[in-house]
Every structure is written in structure tokens, then in C-alpha cells.
């Protein structure tokens, strides 16, 4: 076991400053109204820094900087922009441990995860978009012997991005990498629960980018997010979060006739067909791990496999083994490399999860394991820890229909293929799903029948660049982590050119 020293302690891998300003025009800039808010770590509940509390004045300054930078940045060659993204990736790789510790301290997630997933995935994401922007080409259509339609990709200009708190650096990267690759300047607002780790990242990579290409304004949604999302000076708004704010952002965008991309969550089914249990082999072990993935990132993942559907033939034995496997999920200090589940990201998130555990029991769902706040003792007593929790119930219960965003899975059984698909699709959302079967025909048909944008098949919770990610139904609009996201950050310019010297003959 390795325990990283906490930021603020001697010998820590990284240190946060006591105060962060906004990042505007390539430098740290105090908040216009001089206001700051406290930023606690979920690990202990103690404040570790204060962060600029932005308002419309700060958003305007950031938009000024972005508009100053956008024309020149948009004219750089794809090779130059790719080089910048690769430099960012390299700088992050050189600082992997520091970024991982910063992210864990900010969000509460285990450092095992930030070291192995969050930061490496973010690094690869910059590299992926550095690659695809080099490979992207326009097109031409030869309409007739003298007439050609040319298609060019052009940047949108200045775009707004509002980032969630569950993977602060990775989610910022999902949005920054394609926007920058496509030649846009960005004004980005982190979540107020996790405002600092992105600024720590900027302190490492800021010199690589021309001033004003990336601007970070922190603050509360109503004070900083709203003026950004509703600004007529942004060409597009990208948002990851919940449905009501997603709708509100669409309303603001409609006033300005601007496009949006939205990722709004899910209630992902994880389906285990009977044949999973044909043998208690490596594959069976993998499937049990797939079940337990509901606890990854403390369940604070839009695609948390929060509904487990287990076929009736192996239901009891598989569930018994799954409960036992869940019991081995090690909860502890997030800076210990052996810890698998850390702290929920905020106090209100903790309270919300506990309120769902209440209504689940009130509706008659049975708690098979967990069901309580976890007191880890010592300095962790002030942190926000929840026991991994397994409910057994039915799909009409609210714990089967709403995204709890905690380490809580709701389990039910199904009779056959059609029953599995019916239950899987009986949800307002369609972001992720899991299918587990040894029969490739069953797995394929299930994957195609589920109304969700990402169906993990005999796997779960993989987020590689080069695999499109996004939602059906109420889960949003757009596809991230793939080159197709480039076009969400580009205009299409059509040059329709006549090479004929003769008049058309109309007049």
C-alpha cells in the first residue's frame, strides 16, 4: 500500500495554493467583485482553498479574451494545433501523480482510479484529438462537368463549456480537446463542487496555449453559469449535468439560435443472462466485477450500472456471489492506493443518496448489503462516505427510475430475452447499458435492442477515445470521445464553384 501525502502536508506530491483566481487571457485574474468561495475536500470535509466567485463581469472579461484569441487560433494549421494538444498531453504525463492526487483531493475519488483512469484517459484524449484533426478532411462533390461543391470545416469561434464535478479534469478534457482541435477558443466553467483541480491543470499547461484560447471562470451556476450559457457572444454551449438545467440551457440557446450538446445522465441497465453462470471460470469472475462496477467512482458516473437485471435461472446464486464480491470493495482513505471507493463529492450529494436509500426502503425494496453512511473514523469522519448498497426490488420503484449518483444498485430478475429488453428500456434515459452473455447472438441482439447510446458487451465502464459516447432519449444530444465530436465544434462552409465561362441563360 502507498499512501500519498495529502495536499497541505509536507512532502505532498502537489500543493494547492490557498486561493485561486479566474484563468482569463493566459493569466490568473482576480474576480471582478472581489468575492471568493470556500472549497472543501470531500475526503475530510475541510476547506483547502478558496476560489474566485465569478459573475457576469468575469464572464464578459473571459469572452473578451476568447474573442481576441479566436481568429488567430482558428487560422493556425491543424499541425500546429495538434502539436499544442500533444504538448499538453506530454506535460500531463510528466505530472501524472500530481494531477491524480489533485483530482482525488478535489473530488474524493480513490487515487487508484485517478492514477489508472482519470488522468491517463485525459492524456490519451488530447492525443486522440491531436491525431484526428490531422486526419480530418473536407470533401468535394463534382456536381457536373463545370460545377464543384467544396466542403470546408471551420471553427465556430468562441464556445461555452459547463463541466460536471464527477470527473472534473477528464470531463473538461472531453470538451476541451475537440473544441481546441477544431480551432475554437473556449470559456469553461467548472462545477462549483470541484473548481480547483482544473485550475491546477491550467497552472501546468497554461504556457502551452496562446493567451485567451482557454479561459476558466469559476462560480455558482446562477451567477456565472447562466450569464455564460445565455450569452449571445458564444457560438455553442456544451453541458454535462441534469435534465432541468439541460432544458434551461436549451432555452437560453434557443433565444440566441445557438446549438447545444448535452449529456444528461442515465439509469443504465446491466443485464446478466443465465449462460453467464454456465461455468464458474474467469468469465464468471469478470461478470461479477461487471456487476460491482456500480461502485466505481462512488457511483457518481452518468453511466453507473445502477439497475442490475439478472435472469431467473441463475438469479439467486449469481446475486449471492455478487453481494459477496461487493463486500470486498475496499473503502478507505482516498489517497491510499488500495482504496477502491472513496468519498462522495459533496455533502448535498451524500444527503441525496441517503434520501434515496430511505425511499427505496419505504417502497419495499430489500437492502441486501450496505444502506448507510459510512463513518471511516479519524479525520475521515467529516468526509462524505456511503457503504456500497444493493437493493432488491422491481423496476417501477423510484430507485430503479432515478439516477441516485451514489454507490447504489437496484436488482431485479427477468424471465427471458424479451422481458430483459422490456425492463431495460422502461426508463426515461438511454445513455449506457451492459450485456453479459457467452452467446454472441444473444449479446448482439440485446445490444441492438437496448435504446442506449453505449452498450458495453461483456465489459463495463471503459471510456476509451475512439468509441462514441452519448445518449438516446432523455440522456442528451451529441456524441463525445470520438472524432464525430469535432463536427459539433465546426461550421460547414460550402463553396459552390462554377468553372463554366458561360451565362446560365435565365436572364
Amino acid at each position, binding site marked *: 500500500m502507498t499512501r500519498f501525502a495529502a495536499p497541505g502536508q509536507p512532502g505532498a506530491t502537489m500543493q494547492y495554493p490557498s486561493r485561486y483566481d479566474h484563468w482569463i487571457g493566459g493569466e490568473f485574474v482576480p474576480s471582478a467583485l472581489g468575492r471568493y*468561495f470556500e472549497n472543501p475536500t470531500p475526503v475530510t470535509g475541510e476547506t483547502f482553498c478558496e476560489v474566485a*466567485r465569478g459573475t457576469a463581469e468575469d464572464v464578459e472579461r473571459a469572452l473578451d479574451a476568447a474573442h481576441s484569441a479566436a481568429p488567430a487560433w482558428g487560422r493556425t494549421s491543424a499541425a500546429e494545433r495538434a502539436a499544442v494538444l500533444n504538448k499538453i498531453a506530454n506535460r500531463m504525463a510528466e505530472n501524472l501523480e500530481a494531477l491524480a492526487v489533485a483530482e482525488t483531493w478535489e473530488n474524493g475519488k480513490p487515487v487508484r482510479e485517478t492514477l489508472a483512469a482519470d488522468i491517463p484517459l485525459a492524456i490519451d484524449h488530447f492525443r486522440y484529438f491531436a491525431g484526428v484533426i490531422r486526419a480530418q478532411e473536407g470533401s468535394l462533390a463534382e456536381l457536373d462537368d463545370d460545377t464543384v461543391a467544396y466542403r470546408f470545416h471551420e471553427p465556430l469561434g468562441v464556445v461555452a463549456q459547463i463541466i*460536471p*464535478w*464527477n470527473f472534473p479534469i477528464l470531463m473538461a478534457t472531453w470538451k476541451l480537446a475537440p473544441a481546441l482541435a477544431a480551432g475554437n477558443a473556449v470559456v469553461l466553467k467548472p*462545477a*462549483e*463542487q470541484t473548481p480547483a483541480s482544473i485550475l491546477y491543470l491550467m497552472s501546468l499547461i497554461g504556457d502551452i496555449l496562446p493567451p485567451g484560447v482557454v479561459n476558466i471562470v469559476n462560480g*455558482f*451556476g*446562477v*451567477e456565472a*453559469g*447562466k450569464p455564460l450559457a445565455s450569452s449571445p457572444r458564444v457560438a455553442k454551449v456544451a453541458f*454535462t*449535468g*441534469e*435534465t*432541468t*438545467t*439541460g*432544458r*434551461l440551457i436549451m*432555452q437560453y440557446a434557443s433565444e440566441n439560435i445557438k446549438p447545444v450538446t448535452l*449529456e*444528461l*445522465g*442515465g439509469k443504465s441497465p446491466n443485464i446478466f443472462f443465465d449462460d453467464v453462470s454456465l461455468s464458474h471460470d474467469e468469465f464468471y469472475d469478470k461478470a461479477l466485477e461487471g456487476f460491482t462496477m456500480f461502485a466505481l467512482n462512488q457511483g*457518481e458516473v*452518468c453511466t453507473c450500472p445502477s439497475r442490475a437485471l439478472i435472469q431467473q435461472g441463475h438469479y439467486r446464486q449469481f446475486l449471492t456471489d455478487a453481494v459477496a464480491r461487493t463486500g470486498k470493495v475496499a473503502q478507505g482513505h482516498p489517497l491510499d492506493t488500495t482504496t477502491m471507493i472513496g468519498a462522495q463529492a*459533496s*455533502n*448535498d*450529494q451524500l*444527503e*441525496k443518496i441517503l*434520501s*434515496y436509500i*430511505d*425511499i427505496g426502503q*419505504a*417502497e419495499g425494496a430489500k437492502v441486501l448489503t450496505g444502506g448507510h453512511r459510512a463513518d471511516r473514523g479519524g479525520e475521515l469522519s467529516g468526509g462524505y462516505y456511503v457503504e456500497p448498497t444493493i437493493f432488491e426490488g422491481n423496476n*417501477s420503484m*423510484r430507485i430503479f*427510475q*432515478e*439516477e*441516485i*449518483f451514489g454507490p447504489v444498485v437496484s436488482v431485479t430478475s427477468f424471465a427471458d430475452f424479451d422481458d430483459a429488453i422490456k425492463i431495460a428500456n422502461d426508463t*426515461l*434515459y438511454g445513455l449506457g447499458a451492459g450485456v453479459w452473455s457467452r452467446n454472441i447472438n444473444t449479446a448482439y441482439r440485446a445490444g441492438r435492442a437496448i435504446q442506449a447510446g453505449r452498450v458495453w458487451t461483456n465489459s463495463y465502464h471503459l471510456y476509451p477515445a475512439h468509441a462514441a459516447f452519448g445518449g438516446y432519449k*432523455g*440522456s442528451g444530444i451529441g456524441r463525445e470521445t470520438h472524432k464525430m465530436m469535432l463536427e459539433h465544434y465546426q461550421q460547414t462552409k460550402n463553396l459552390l464553384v462554377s468553372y463554366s465561362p458561360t451565362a446560365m441563360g435565365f436572364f
Partner: protein
Amino acid sequence: MPEMSRVCLTPAAAELVRKMYAAHGPLMFHQSGGCCDGSSPMCYMQGEFRTGASDVLLAALRVEGVPEPVTFWMSAAQFGRWRHTHLTVDVVSGRGSGFSLEAPEGLRFLIRSRLLTAEESAALGGGPG
């Protein structure tokens, strides 16, 4: 006996509503769903969030000291999954995201739920559907 309703406020929530009313004027709630801060009630200035045919008005809450009723809305599809439960708007300390008005106070409105009683269910139409 108070009028039967699907939604009520705790005294702490009513106090925060009064504070938000003093700062912003007439208010509304829209219940969110989905990721991150989903499942939280979002508090806006009345009319800030445009409701339409896809929304259901669950309650018009009377709050002492607030002349206009505070409306409580939810999308109709979500209401289909929630209609058998009674909702209590409470307040916890926290840092909730979204554009809800109270977040800068270091407080978040939070929903606590219970099943409708048989009497409430009959009166309010709490059956599945």
C-alpha cells in the same frame, strides 16, 4: 387539517424560500432528473424556466410571508414515475450545481420522499400510470 398536497416544505425550506423571495421576487421549482445534481429541485425566478405541455404542475405552495404561491413543476414523463410518492422540500448544506438560486448561500434544496397514504392516493390520483 392542512389541504392535501403532493408537495410540502419543511420550516427550513420555507425560511429559505422567504429569503430567496426577498432577493429575487416570485419563485418556482422545477424538479430535475438525471446526472450529477439530478433529482434535486431547482429553484428559479417565476418564469425563468419555461414550462410547457410536457410539464405537470404538482403544487402551488403557500409560504407565509410570500404573497405569490410558489409553483412546483416536474416533467410529465418523470411524474409518471414519481406520482405514487409525496415530496417534502428540505434544505441541506452543500454546494449543488445547476442554476438554482440558493446555491450561493451554501445551501441546497433537497427532496425527501414518502409513499402517498391510501387517502392521499385516492384524492390525488397516485396510482401507477
